[in-house]
């Protein structure tokens, strides 16, 4: 007779009910959107329009270009910092990951005003060169440049992580077998890096598909901007719903393509580092390496901050009016979103970790739907839902928090799952046998032990909410402007001083939050199962 495994025990009724509620919440936007798009005929209309193909083509072009560009930039930077004697690589390693934290709308408006045809750069150069215009930045070139600069860290971080565990003796083996430098790279190193390139490239592609800030401010009409214009401009909700559903299909397409490749390129089992790798001597090439790193950091980090400071100095008086109120509103809605999302993540994590079954993996998949959906689509579908089904929710903070929660749930689930995993379910049994009732058990045992996971879940959701733009634009109550929407609308209206001031407050706020979160705490050794 085999030993009964825990999976055959059933979750409590309370936990099952919570799981069903979360699943329903996560399914609501997609199901409602699909229903509206198909039943309202929007999908059909959109498919018949020539313009839709242009939008789809531009979206896919930009997505593919950004994914490739990020790989092309992230891979050499990872190699330079992980495998060479590049001077200052310790500091560069950290700095090169930072562009991830820059919101796309901040990068977009600073890049546009600095590098545009008659931007700051042109003004600075004109006395010397006499150039009256620089090449066009609006449209594809600007959107591509900004998104690559913000997304290459996905590839860079994944590739660095892969370099860190890559067995250097594999490269030595190839060398002994007579393979030259190029052949070694192509036949050994690159295949080993493929998963990292793929997962990093996938994240960059998904970011691009869902990005609204950069494409809207740089005037490149992809799905997100087109949808926004449909809703705001013509109030044509059917067409917007149809376009949004097409965007969902595009996202599924990217995910499907990625999972196809993924299976083929799993690293060999046991491919762990046996010996630390030898660092390549760059020699004179180190200048080229430094030039590349600074060529990336300059526009991705220095330029946004520098341009913001410049516009701030140039700003007319009163550019900062109301920013404190916006800061307070941002903090409030982000805090509510962080608490709500993390609370919803707890039952999901318990069901998937403690009661693995087909049902709980279905719940896990469902809870990731909102994450895969662009924020604009989540916002749009909830606008439809509120207008048609629950008017009392329309233009309320509750609906905005709900959208954040559905959109960011996996960010809270992952750390909670990670802390719950190594905790033995026996701890709860032990507390019960010692006479502790539900509330006392969870207050004294479960919550403190989940503490680190809950904290990182809260922090991640909070930070993402602070920067979130499209869902906030769609759903925020009238007059409830956050820092993100302030930056965007000020940039739209060419109030550059105001956009710059709001951007700087936003960046400082994010940095301060990060510092609080990352402050060294007492490490807690988990009880091993």
């Amino acid at each position, binding site marked *: 007779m085999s030993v009964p495994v825990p999976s055959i*025990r059933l979750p409590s009724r309370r936990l099952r009910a919570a799981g069903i509620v979360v699943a329903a919440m996560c399914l609501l936007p997609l199901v409602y959107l699909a229903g509206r798009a198909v039943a309202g005929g929007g999908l059909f209309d959109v498919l018949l329009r020539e313009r839709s193909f242009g939008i789809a083509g531009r979206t896919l072009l930009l997505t593919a270009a950004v994914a490739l560009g990020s790989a092309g930039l992230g891979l050499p930077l990872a190699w330079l910092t992980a495998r060479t004697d590049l001077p200052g690589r310790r500091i560069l390693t950290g700095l090169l990951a930072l562009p991830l934290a820059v919101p796309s709308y901040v990068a977009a408006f600073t890049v546009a005003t600095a590098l545009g045809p008659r931007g700051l750069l042109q003004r600075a150069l004109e006395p010397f060169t006499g150039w009256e215009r620089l090449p066009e930045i609006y449209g594809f070139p600007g959107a591509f440049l900004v998104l690559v600069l913000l997304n290459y860290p996905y590839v860079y971080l994944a590739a660095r992580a892969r370099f860190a565990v890559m067995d250097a003796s594999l490269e030595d083996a190839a060398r002994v077998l007579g393979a030259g430098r190029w052949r070694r790279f192509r036949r050994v190193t690159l295949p080993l890096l493929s998963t990292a390139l793929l997962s990093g490239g996938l994240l960059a592609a998904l970011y691009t598909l869902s990005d609204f800030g950069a494409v809207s401010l740089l005037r490149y009409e992809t799905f997100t901007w087109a949808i926004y214009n449909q809703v705001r401009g013509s109030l044509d909700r059917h067409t917007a719903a149809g376009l949004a559903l097409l965007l969902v299909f595009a996202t599924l397409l990217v995910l499907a393509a990625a999972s196809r490749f993924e299976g083929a390129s799993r690293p060999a089992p046991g491919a762990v580092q046996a010996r630390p790798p030898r660092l390549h001597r760059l020699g004179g090439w180190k200048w080229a390496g430094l030039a590349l790193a600074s060529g990336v950091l300059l526009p991705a980090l220095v330029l946004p901050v520098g341009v913001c400071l410049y516009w701030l100095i140039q700003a007319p008086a009163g550019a900062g009016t109301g920013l404190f109120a916006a800061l307070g509103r941002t903090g409030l809605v982000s805090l509510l979103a962080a608490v709500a999302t993390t609370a919803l993540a707890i039952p999901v994590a318990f069901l998937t970790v403690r009661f693995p079954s087909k049902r709980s993996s279905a719940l896990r998949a469902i809870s990731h739907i909102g994450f895969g959906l662009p924020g604009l689509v989540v916002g749009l579908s909830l606008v439809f839902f509120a207008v048609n089904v629950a008017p009392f929710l329309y233009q309320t903070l509750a609906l905005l928090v709900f959208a954040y929660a559905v959109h960011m749930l996996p960010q809270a689930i992952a750390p909670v799952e990670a802390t719950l995993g190594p905790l033995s379910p026996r701890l709860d049994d032990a507390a019960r046998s010692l006479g502790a009732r539900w509330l006392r058990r969870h207050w004294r045992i479960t919550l403190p032990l989940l503490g680190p996971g809950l904290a990182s879940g809260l922090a991640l959701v909070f930070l993402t909410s602070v920067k979130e733009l499209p869902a906030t634009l769609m759903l925020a109550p009238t007059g409830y402007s956050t820092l993100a929407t302030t930056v965007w609308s000020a940039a739209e209206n060419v109030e550059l001083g105001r956009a710059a001031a709001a951007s700087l407050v936003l960046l400082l706020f994010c940095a301060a939050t990060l510092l609080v979160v990352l402050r060294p705490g007492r490490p807690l050794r988990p*009880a091993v199962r």
Partner: protein
Amino acid sequence: MSGAEAGAVGEAALRCRAIEKRFLSNGRLDPDRPVLAGVDLDVPPGSLTAVLGPSGGGKTTLLRIVAGLETADAGEVRVLGRTVTGTGVFVPPESRRVGLVFQEYALFPHLSALENVAFGVPGPAGLTKAWGALQMVGLSEVAGHRPHELSGGEQQRVALARALAPEPAVVLLDEPFSNLDAPRRAGVREEVAQLLRRLDATAVLVTHDREEAFLLADQVVLLLDGRVVRSGRPEELARHPGSRAGAEFLGETNFLPGESDGKSALCEIGRVEILPPASGGEPPRGPVEVLLPLDGLLVEPFAEEDRAGSAVAVLTRAAFHGAFQLIEARLPSGRSIAARSPAREIWQGLLRPGQRVGLRPAGPVPVFPA
């Protein structure tokens, strides 16, 4: 409940009747896979009972049902005369007064040793009690340490102190010594048994280790495939393991086919006296299997005059272990039989392979229907 308790003078501290449990496999009840099939258990107050059986035999499930961490499909559990699991009755684990020491201890990693022990006895008075419990297991010096700063044996004692601090009616110990390394195990289990006796605690210990069960317990319950095969004092079990499967699990025995007439059985080593069945009643008649324990066989150099109950066998192996000699002999039919001779017999001269020996049981032996 007081009436029941008053009337429970002679009643066991813990009493299980006809406990049944099946687990779901693929979401369905599997009728062919009962984990527990009608288990009875009586634990007298102040005694230590060992539930002995192989892994997967249902021991841990039985413990979890008694603790209320698992429901039973049928049957009844009474603690101090109060029904805690039964038809239409289910008292949650937190109100059962049943303590539990887990196999992996399950100490709360974020609480100190003292806080762990105090968890079950809330309030300021509880802290004093917890301190007392920690002193009792000799760990007051590490009261402020977190579990990961304690050795395996210390963690085990904290777990025991934690289970005992709320003064449970019965304390259950699930394989409590299996996580300790062999050299330390013997000492720790002796200490634990002494402590439980000193406190006059009622305890149930689950183990797969025959020696541990025999050494520590007042009563041993042999649980095989979800059924109680035999229960009794350790020496009673050693003598009569209840069934052929029970004998196989306990090991160190030979089986020989024989023919029983109800009082004695004739088998290849001669006529042997029969021990009455453990459950009472008549010994089986007709074809039987005769159980001959390794330690219950007298091995003697073959004397010329053949006696009843002593057969001639040829030694094929003789391994000297110091305290005893383990021998294997071939019977005339070609069957092999093993026996263990204590050192004092060996001093009369070691047995050597090739030697002819006589074998007979030291007393009556159990037989099972063939």
